[in-house]
């Protein structure tokens, strides 16, 4: 214990302390991951729990490595969004917008509103309420995609409905994140509206450019050498994310748009090479978020979190049922589609992380942690046991 928490003894953290703490953190993540795989649950809630237990108010203090973990968490978000963008081609996105915009709209209204109203009821600042709305709105593509694949449901008819809704959500997020960033900065109404407009324009232009020139750019950047590919893609992504952040369009969205633009061979190879890196830094991101929350802050917010979880599970079930029915899927398929939208995960934590970093509302982190813990686990079980 004294090795890990040595306040005041060393002004500059020695390499050995950093290494020991980091090694311990990563091993904790590994143990959580193994347990999760054994039990058949997603690993995100366990990473969060680990962060909660290791964070403020715990006997073990991570001093030396905290800076690295913080930066690692930022990189984790960028990589999460890059890999998400690499999943999709520009054609899939534009096709998704054109055919599913109504379902996407219903999904947004049904599941954003409870979060927003919930925040208002708790007496939160309106901007924090907007973030809470985003947290309750977005389903975890990562958890759901893995579940559907593990349960061999990719061939099911209702799966294409679910995946289309997830695509719409990711597109909405690409606009939501810059809007949230602008609102947090606290600009005037005019400035905020202009920034929202700018964000919409940037996303639309990026999609358009990807459709037209994405293939060419992908060919230019592609390389058979893994080393060159990694350097090129990571360099481009970080640069774009940083510039996007400067332009108030949010680093995460910049990374997402780069991922969308890259298609074909470079996307395939990139996904294979970058997934492990994303997993490491993504793990750091979830632990970092948990580290910032004092576990004793959780019980007071348990009731609102549970209430939100129940209401927004119902809203997702309703949305999934309706969307599947509209697509001509039978009753059993509709049930499966409804359950598949319940899990929340990485994206909700990303939004909560933005709010926590801005220091908006004390309870935002705890509510989000509670909420995601409940629905990552509860949602996964719901999907698994809905035949």
């Amino acid at each position: 214990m004294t090795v890990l928490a040595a306040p005041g003894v060393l002004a500059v953290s020695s390499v050995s302390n950093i290494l020991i703490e980091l090694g311990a953190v990563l091993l904790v993540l590994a143990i959580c991951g193994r347990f999760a795989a054994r039990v058949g649950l997603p690993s995100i809630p366990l990473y969060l729990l680990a962060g909660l237990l290791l964070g403020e108010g715990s006997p073990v203090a991570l001093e030396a490595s905290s800076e690295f973990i913080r930066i690692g968490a930022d990189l984790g978000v960028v990589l999460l969004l890059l890999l998400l963008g690499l999943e999709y081609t520009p054609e899939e996105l534009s096709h998704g917008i054109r055919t599913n915009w109504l379902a996407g709209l219903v999904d947004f209204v049904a599941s954003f509103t409870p979060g927003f109203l919930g925040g208002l009821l708790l007496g939160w600042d309106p901007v924090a309420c907007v973030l809470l709305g985003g947290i309750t709105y977005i389903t975890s593509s990562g958890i759901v995609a893995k579940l559907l694949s593990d349960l061999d449901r990719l061939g099911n008819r209702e799966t294409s409905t679910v995946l289309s809704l997830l695509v719409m959500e990711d597109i909405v997020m690409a606009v939501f994140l810059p809007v949230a960033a602008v609102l947090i900065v606290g600009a005037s109404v005019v400035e905020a509206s202009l920034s929202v407009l700018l964000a919409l324009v940037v996303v639309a232009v990026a999609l358009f450019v990807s459709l037209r020139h994405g293939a060419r750019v992908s060919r230019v950047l592609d390389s058979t050498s893994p080393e060159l590919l990694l350097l090129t893609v990571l360099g481009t992504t970080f640069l774009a994310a940083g510039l996007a952040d400067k332009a108030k369009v949010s680093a995460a969205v910049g990374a997402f748009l780069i991922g969308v633009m890259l298609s074909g061979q470079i996307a395939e190879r990139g996904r294979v090479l970058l997934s492990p890196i994303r997993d490491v830094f993504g793990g750091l991101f979830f632990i970092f978020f948990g580290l910032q929350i004092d576990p004793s802050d959780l019980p007071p917010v348990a009731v609102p979190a549970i209430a939100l979880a129940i209401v927004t599970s119902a809203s997702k079930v309703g949305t999934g049922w309706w969307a599947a029915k509209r697509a001509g899927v039978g009753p059993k398929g509709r049930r499966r589609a409804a359950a598949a939208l319940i899990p929340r995960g990485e994206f909700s934590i990303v939004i909560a992380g933005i709010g926590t970093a801005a220091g908006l509302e004390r309870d935002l982190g705890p509510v989000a942690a509670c909420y995601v813990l409940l629905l990552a686990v509860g949602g996964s079980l719901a999907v698994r046991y809905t035949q």
Partner: protein
Amino acid sequence: MELFETPLPGVGVRYEFTSAAGDRVGVIVRRDARRELLLYDEADPDACRDNVSLTGEEAATMVELLGGTKITERIADLRHEVEGLSIEWVTLESGRGLAGRTIGDGRIRTETGSSVVAVIRGEQSIPGPGPDFRLEAGDVALVVGSIEGVQKALRLLTT
């Protein structure tokens, strides 16, 4: 046979059709070259009774077992059209026949009257190789000619 195509964003494309016998069958063409064979349930038409996950290589084997590619079919049709026409594939083996030598060396045209009209080398297809084309072990040659001519050419190529 009506083939339905549904994009699965982030995964690939799903194709499905109903067989003449009434079974609903599908294939997911995943982006990473894997394929999934789907057999839909009669009781729950949206769910799959069973699915088989195949690697790219396994899928290619299935294709061969299920009756070969369209090219082979078309060649078979061609054989019906021209009486006495023979079209054969042959794989060259190392150190035997014309492996390592040019088509001209083998004097296939002069000796047998049939022609090597295409060579498949790995992933590459070379149509209309000239007499200076050097054959290598592992090449698959497509020989066209009369029945006896093709038989003679095959012997020249492989022994």
